[in-house]
């Protein structure tokens, strides 16, 4: 209820100040840093030039985009399938949900290390192939970008699908089951129900999941470092490289700004394309 007191502003103030100082200012500063502010060269575009001249930068852009384009569709289909399975109320559903949600608390570094034990030359995958008499495969071979991509995709699929799953499941739980039942009585097959009733009604949840997942996907880097060392560059990994190993905070900022820009653009694209006509009609 609206109260004309000063209390809410007082309660809010610490957080607002905190965020403005430790978030608002750094973002502005970061963008400025990319343009040379604070460096010996002063205001310049040469750091952007340096970034664009580095072939590893373009490789990392390609890898990051590839990773997202391959991973996200697969991940979303898997998560929706898992959510539907949970909705079917099988026995041990509670146990399944727990195990399927555990990777939520796993960092991408840990995921990389876990799948390293599987993919490494004398790891578990090749061991199992050997038991079956097949030859081992050099999964993490730096000369095969496809295989490296596959390894990274699998590790990230294993780790980050839980986030999409949890968002989709909570969205599904909020859907009244009347809609699905009405569709059943009206003659819809399970696939038709999914296409015409469940998925359209899940659009808000899917939108949130897509935006969150894409932004987080752009920030993955440790998984590739764990699995392939420096052979599979990713955007944030390059930021890290420039800052820590090459001691160039300005180029690092430039790459960071690129990531920021792409994140925002994709978020806007999602918001535009997933807009619901019936929500518009309500206005």
């Amino acid at each position: 209820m609206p109260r004309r007191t000063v209390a809410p502003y007082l309660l809010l103030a610490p957080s607002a100040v905190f965020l403005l100082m430790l978030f608002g200012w750094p973002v502005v500063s970061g963008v400025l840093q990319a343009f040379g502010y604070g460096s010996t060269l002063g205001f310049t575009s040469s750091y952007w030039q340096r970034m664009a001249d580095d072939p590893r930068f373009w490789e990392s852009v390609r890898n990051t985009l590839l990773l997202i384009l391959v991973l996200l569709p697969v991940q979303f289909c898997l998560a929706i399938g898992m959510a539907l399975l949970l909705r079917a109320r099988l026995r041990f559903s509670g146990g399944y949900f727990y195990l399927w949600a555990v990777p939520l608390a796993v960092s991408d570094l840990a995921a990389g290390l876990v799948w390293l034990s599987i993919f490494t030359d004398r790891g578990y995958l090749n061991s199992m192939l050997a038991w079956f008499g097949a030859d081992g495969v050099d999964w993490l071979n730096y000369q095969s970008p496809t295989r490296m991509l596959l390894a990274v995709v699998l590790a990230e699929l294993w780790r980050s699908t839980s986030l999409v799953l949890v968002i989709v499941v909570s969205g599904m739980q909020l859907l009244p089951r009347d809609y699905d039942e009405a569709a059943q009585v009206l003659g819809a097959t399970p696939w038709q129900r999914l296409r015409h009733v469940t998925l359209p009604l899940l659009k808000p949840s899917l939108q949130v999941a897509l935006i969150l997942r894409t932004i987080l996907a752009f920030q993955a880097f440790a998984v590739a470092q764990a699995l392939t060392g420096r052979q599979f560059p990713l955007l944030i990994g390059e930021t890290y490289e420039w800052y820590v190993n090459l001691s160039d905070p300005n180029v690092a900022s430039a790459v960071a700004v690129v990531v920021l820009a792409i994140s925002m653009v994709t978020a806007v694209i999602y918001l535009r394309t997933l807009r619901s006509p019936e929500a518009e009609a309500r206005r």
Partner: protein
Amino acid sequence: MAEIRLRDLVKVFPGQQTPAVDRVSLDIAEGEFMVLLGPSGCGKTTMLRMVAGLELPGSGQVVIGDRDVTYLPPRDRNLSMVFQSYAVFPHRRVRENIGFGLAMRDVPKSEIERKVTWAAELLQLTDYLDRYPAQLSGGQRQRVAVARAIVVDADVLLMDEPLSNLDALLRLGFRAELKKLVGELGTTTLYVTHDQVEALSLGDRVAVMRDGVLQQVAPPLDVYNTPVNEFVGGFIGSPPMNFLTGTVHNGHVDLGGASLTAPKALRSFTGRQVRLGVRAEAVRLVGESAPGAVPARVEVYEPLGSAALVTTTVAGQQMKVQAPATFRARPGETLWLDLPETRRRWFDPETALALET
């Protein structure tokens, strides 16, 4: 159009001790409008859902027409349903909602177009076809739900308390419309409600349920006038039937303040107690000197506009009397009541069953 035959249906929900539906059998004739009536939790909705296929029975059989459909999924049963919450898809326009069932069965577009227009006209939705459900009122969404159900032209029409979410005035108006509409279509209908007025108004026959068991299945006036037990008598009618306890002594029933002639059938009850049921509007106000007049003390007087409801006590037992609107009474007054013989119903106090007289 098809008849429905239900045999010995049982449904026990996991974790529950008593069955929700306890060996219920019911026949619904072709084109009949059958109302399942009962208090919340009596199992009527579970019955409907078993006919629809949204629940599967533990045992028993559901036959529609000549097919056994007991375990068939809903989409193979060729029926349609109106839900209590309407379940009108919010992300589709009214037009697509109504045509949903037809679209799912791959009916050609022109045919869908034609049928949707027909249904929309029947339910006065023609102006709203291109709107989204969020832009409609509750009553209009209700119509969309009904239109969607009738356009499919199914064998059986199921309705789960479709009017209960409407406000009182809308409910009254739509009830009459629904009766006319379904009457014209002639589809076999199974209608579930807890509102006994709806049941009496709409049904060809009314099936009263309690705790998973059918109490009585009969046309509305029979259920009203000759209830088979005290529960049915008390559930149907507003105000509910009055029940008084009395003792039988040689040909009379002693109510404690008055005495009524006992019918011959009650002779076996001599010396024992018996229950008398009589409806509030059957009771007549008479003078003190009238033969068989029963004294009653006025407790509460409620003017209802079209009539007056007087709560009285007869020998310590409550009796509600419906009087003409012009009648006046004050608490503490004594009235003299006549309980016409033809309107008296007798019940066995142990089994609560009506006694044949």
